[in-house]
């Protein structure tokens, strides 16, 4: 009884706008849960993935949300290892965004694998030679680190008033923040690059098999992850109508993101010009020919990844005329995020559309693969977006994310 009364009181403090917001989130989650139920019931046959294109939209979501969660380890390292204290005001939000991204990836993965009931197998049956095994472990460990990093924030909630000993433990945990930051940095550098290696080591797929893959993955994650956190903090400020993070901090993150994207752009051109040149076997040339003939690969690459994902954000983040206006910074972050998603999609799907050619003859009888996500796949994607927004909303509502009086 008492709890329901309290809940009502809490709910009544929420404005009608926020009720509408929760209605939308509920709708997103309902769509997601329905799609997931359809997938679990019927099997992955209800997706548009096939033996030719065994990975699709969901893997793109996994890769993107882990990359976009990179703000957590980057900013933790900046604050706790490099001792740049002014970023403390955003660090809790960064960890929350990171946590949301990683859990979103795990949720998607559970739906994507054929045997969700065996999700725990990588922890028990080890193949130390597999990048995917290493990634699973790194993500598990890093998720644990993020939870430990975030526990002190969580127990500041009034709810924990009755158990003071939990606060004491949390206080000790908070003292260990530099250790968590160091572990998080190492583990993240490892798995963020391994996600690229997932593709880079596959000999059978000509356009994937190159050493530049892990470096491009990690650099794009480090550049765009913090920028997403920056944009989220702006949006929260707009909604709440309060200043929470000093503008100077956000602008510095945007500038860092701008320079990071420039470095990423440099790597991409090196990859485009040099790596592809040295690795231009006949099968690579043939693959690009097929891609350009059958898919909007070139458009996706130049428009989605380069112009939208790099050039426009770099301009918005670094030009003195635009980087003082929050709207432009948030817009730039949105483009950069889209660029990362474009890139992960392009890498995954384009590589798989090219048929594996193994016959010794001269004619290829294998048709290039075709793939566009089915409604179930889009539905799960919408559900995941709903989940991300819900966690962020609840975090902002109930947690002291912007408590700057940290010692």
């Amino acid at each position, binding site marked *: 009884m008492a709890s329901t009364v309290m809940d009502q009181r809490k709910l009544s403090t929420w404005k009608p706008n926020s009720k509408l917001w929760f209605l939308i989130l509920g709708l997103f989650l309902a769509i997601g849960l329905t799609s997931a139920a359809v997938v679990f019931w019927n099997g992955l046959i209800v997706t548009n993935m096939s033996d030719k294109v065994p990975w699709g939209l969901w893997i793109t979501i996994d890769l993107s949300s882990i990359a976009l969660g990179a703000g957590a380890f980057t900013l933790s390292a900046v604050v706790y290892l490099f001792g740049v204290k002014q970023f403390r005001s955003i660090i809790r939000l960064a960890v929350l965004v990171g946590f949301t991204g990683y859990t979103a990836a795990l949720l998607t993965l559970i739906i994507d694998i054929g045997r969700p009931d065996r999700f725990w197998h990588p922890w028990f049956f080890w193949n130390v030679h597999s990048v995917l095994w290493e990634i699973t472990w790194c993500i598990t460990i890093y998720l644990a680190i993020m939870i430990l990093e975030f526990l002190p924030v969580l127990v500041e909630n009034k709810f924990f008033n009755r158990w003071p000993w939990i606060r004491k433990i949390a206080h000790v945990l908070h003292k260990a923040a530099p250790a968590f930051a160091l572990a998080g940095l190492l583990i993240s550098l490892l798995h963020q690059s391994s996600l690229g290696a997932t593709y880079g080591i596959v000999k*059978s797929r000509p356009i994937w098999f190159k050493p530049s893959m892990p470096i491009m993955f990690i650099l794009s994650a480090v550049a765009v992850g913090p920028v997403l956190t920056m944009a989220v903090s702006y949006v929260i400020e707009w909604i709440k109508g309060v200043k929470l993070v000093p503008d100077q901090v956000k602008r510095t993150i945007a500038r860092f993101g701008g320079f990071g994207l420039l470095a990423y752009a440099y790597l991409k051109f090196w990859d485009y010009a040099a790596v592809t040149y040295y690795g231009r076997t006949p099968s690579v040339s043939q693959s690009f020919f097929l891609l350009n003939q059958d898919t909007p690969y070139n458009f996706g690459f130049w428009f989605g990844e380069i112009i939208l994902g790099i050039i426009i954000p770099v301009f918005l983040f670094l030009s003195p005329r635009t980087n003082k206006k929050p709207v432009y910074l948030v817009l730039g972050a949105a483009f950069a995020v889209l660029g990362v998603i474009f890139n992960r999609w392009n890498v995954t799907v384009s590589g798989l559309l090219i048929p594996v050619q193994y016959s010794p003859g001269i004619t290829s009888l294998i048709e290039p693969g075709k793939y566009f996500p089915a409604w179930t796949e889009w539905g799960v994607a919408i559900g995941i977006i709903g989940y991300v927004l819900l966690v962020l909303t609840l975090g902002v509502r109930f947690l002291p994310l912007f408590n700057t009086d940290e010692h």
Partner: protein
Amino acid sequence: MSKKKKVSVALTRRDFLTLGATAVGSVLAAQVFTTGPLSPFSVLKQQQIEGATEPSIGHGAAGKNHWGMVINLDKCIGCEYCLRACSATNDVREDMAWNVVTKEKNSTGRTFFFSRPCLHCQVAPCVEVCPVRATYIREDGLVVMDYERCIGCRYCEVACPYDARKFNWEARPDEENPYVPTWGIPEVERRPRGVVEKCTFCIQRIDKGLEKGLVPGEDMEATPACVNICPVGARVFGDLKNPESQISQVLEENSTIRLREELGTEPSVYYIPPKEGL
């Protein structure tokens, strides 16, 4: 002014304790990672001790046999009997054939027929990428699947350079197999939904045959269905490690190729090209 400042290193008790704890912690961590039950190395070591009952991803056949196949493209007439016998014996779904047959052209424009089982690579990309060791190389060189362990991530399917792996996108309850009983009777269970499957060189025949003292490749009961049914004898199966076996003789007498050899996958399947060349 030129007096040297005395530099004193003050080691407080706190520092001392921190250093001590770090040192002890490192030693413990090293212990856990190298010898403890959580250590990857201990798993590998244990397997070595147990004579690799469940082999690590290993490279190649370590035992006394190495099963391989020769496919003579010059003899193949494209009848697809191998496909049918395989699909019946292993109860393979029609659109998921483990053993495919295609019509190909050589550089002079002449048609030849090409068929492909799983090549049982000795440096197998699929085995390397599996996050749970659900697929592994046996002592006798066979690349096999553990359907009970596969989580269905499909990374092996993505990594296979020969498109030899198929995923069970849906359950196969009581659907008819059009190849049964004309082309054979299923000898293995259907695979469940959500796991990857592939050609096994009819592992059930090899294992049962060896128990009975038969020789795979010579006694039909111990030989893969596709080899037995071939009406023109285009497929030869046997022990690559035994120089007396038929397959070793065939390999000695003919020049052969392996598929995508540049990838270094060391397939166990060899091809004799058509007389007119490729």
